[in-house]
């Protein structure tokens, strides 16, 4: 199957020079108390890209501030409305300033100052309506060298590691060769793959950092009272822990690993990066990732324009800010839930396609989606967004040796 993949497509040019594939109006609530008002502001614009993001916590969090700053200045975002209750601790002036510095239109509404829900919703809708009516940003063209792709798996089953995940791995190998930035994560599911992961690092210092990131994930998991990683849970023909982990790890492909990043770190050049989403320091914020949406938001904070989401059992989630492409590993799941899926990788197991066929199909769809085609989850209105408490130390110099 010969699939012609375009090497250039239209994009939005931002004032800071970054290029986006969507022109989202982001409505950000700065504490849960402002969430309903933010949702009401966005509600009339269901067919348009008006996306609600936000942070529920009332206590200070450098991580949450960094995440909202990164997301509100993400290249897929064109303008930002901040919705504050008025007494929360997230510094709204600093956030507004960060967005302003990026050259985007930004407005802050403070519910307590505006007189409550009704007046704030009215003011918010007026502002959003004006943004949607305004002339769009400057257009430009984009190539693989401008593109950042993240990947995650969720609702996995025995087919995930045979079809969808290795297919995404081949997509990553091809896209890194084309100059793109590709990001994988899930160190919690990489136990047993440390040696292979370290062997792919471009420098010895990075190899050490990669090993330590998996060891940290293991420590955190044990501290959370998870059953430890044993081989007894390898089922469905799996024999060893490294073989079990290989299922998720295979999304990273087989190429060199160029760096280790943490949430909000945007790689400065193309390559393959491991995103460490497990908090640093003592385990104190509960489970590192309470669901897939937390990790998707972190992949987007690192600049991901689009997310490849592999699933066997059938997840339906999408995301605010960046389109999610669903790669379904299992043909039976695809047949049952095809409205929610973009790619049927299960065809591999019935001999109807090869891994290379499916990889080419995914690659072609990525460029179509980058050029504006809506994914299944976008069509269905999925805009999940979850942000909680975490804390990170900055990455060390060995983590980002470049190419």
């Amino acid at each position: 199957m010969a699939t012609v993949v375009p090497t250039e497509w239209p994009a939005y040019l931002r004032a800071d020079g970054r290029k986006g594939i969507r022109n989202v109006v982001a409505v950000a609530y700065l504490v849960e108390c402002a969430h309903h008002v933010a949702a009401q502001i966005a509600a009339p614009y269901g067919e348009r890209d008006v996306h609600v993001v936000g942070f529920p916590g009332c206590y200070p969090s450098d991580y949450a501030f960094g995440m909202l700053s990164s997301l509100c200045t993400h290249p897929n975002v064109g303008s930002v409305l901040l919705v504050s209750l008025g007494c929360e601790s997230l510094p709204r002036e600093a956030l507004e300033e960060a967005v302003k510095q990026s050259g985007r239109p930004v407005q802050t509404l403070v519910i307590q100052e505006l007189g409550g829900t009704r007046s704030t919703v009215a003011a918010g809708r007026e502002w959003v309506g004006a943004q949607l009516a305004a002339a769009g940003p400057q257009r430009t063209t984009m190539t693989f060298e401008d593109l950042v792709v993240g990947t995650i798996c969720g609702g996995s089953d025995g087919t995930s590691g045979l079809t969808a995940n290795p297919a995404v791995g081949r997509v990553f190998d091809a896209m890194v060769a084309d100059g793109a930035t590709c990001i994988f994560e899930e160190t919690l599911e990489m136990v047993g793959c440390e040696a292979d992961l370290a062997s792919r690092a471009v420098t010895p210092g990075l190899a050490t950092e990669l090993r330590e990131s998996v060891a940290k994930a293991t420590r955190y998991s044990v501290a959370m009272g998870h059953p430890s990683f044993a081989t007894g849970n390898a089922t469905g023909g799996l024999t060893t822990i490294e073989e079990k982990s290989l299922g998720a790890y295979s999304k990273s492909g087989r190429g060199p690993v160029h760096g280790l990043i943490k949430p909000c770190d945007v790689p400065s050049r193309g390559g393959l990066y491991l995103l460490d989403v497990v908090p640093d320091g003592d385990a104190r914020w509960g489970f590192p990732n309470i669901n897939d949406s937390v990790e998707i938001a972190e992949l987007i904070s690192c600049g991901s324009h689009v997310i490849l989401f592999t699933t066997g059992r059938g997840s339906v989630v999408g995301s605010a800010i960046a389109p999610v492409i669903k790669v379904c590993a299992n043909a039976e799941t695809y047949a049952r839930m095809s409205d929610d899926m973009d790619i049927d990788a299960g065809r591999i197991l019935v001999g109807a396609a090869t891994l290379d066929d499916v990889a080419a199909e995914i690659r072609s769809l990525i460029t179509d989606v980058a050029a504006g085609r809506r994914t299944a989850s976008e069509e269905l209105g999925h805009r999940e967004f979850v942000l909680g408490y975490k804390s990170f130390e900055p990455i060390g110099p060995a983590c980002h040796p470049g190419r």
Partner: protein
Amino acid sequence: MTGLDDDPPPYFLLLAGDSVVVLIRHVDAGATFVGPEGSTWTMREPLETGSKLATRAITAGDQVIKLGMPIGTATKAIAPGELVHTHNLRSNFIAVELEGAEHGNGSAD
């Protein structure tokens, strides 16, 4: 596997060079089919989807390779087409030293 055969084999080779293939459907004892390197294999026992079969002769001490990555060390000689599982493969993984963490050794049944 290149796909599109009328009667595709019941296994899947994830990456050229792998020392195992993975069964993609249940096979009965006595089933015969052709392995990726051309020899005919006869199953000695019924096997479930997901089971691994050796693509070539493996010597005790060899790394077993799936999708290009070592998934453990062979503990005895394995013939082409033979089941690879806990009876002849053990993990290379040495768990980091953690209180409460079990150390995987590939011996689970």
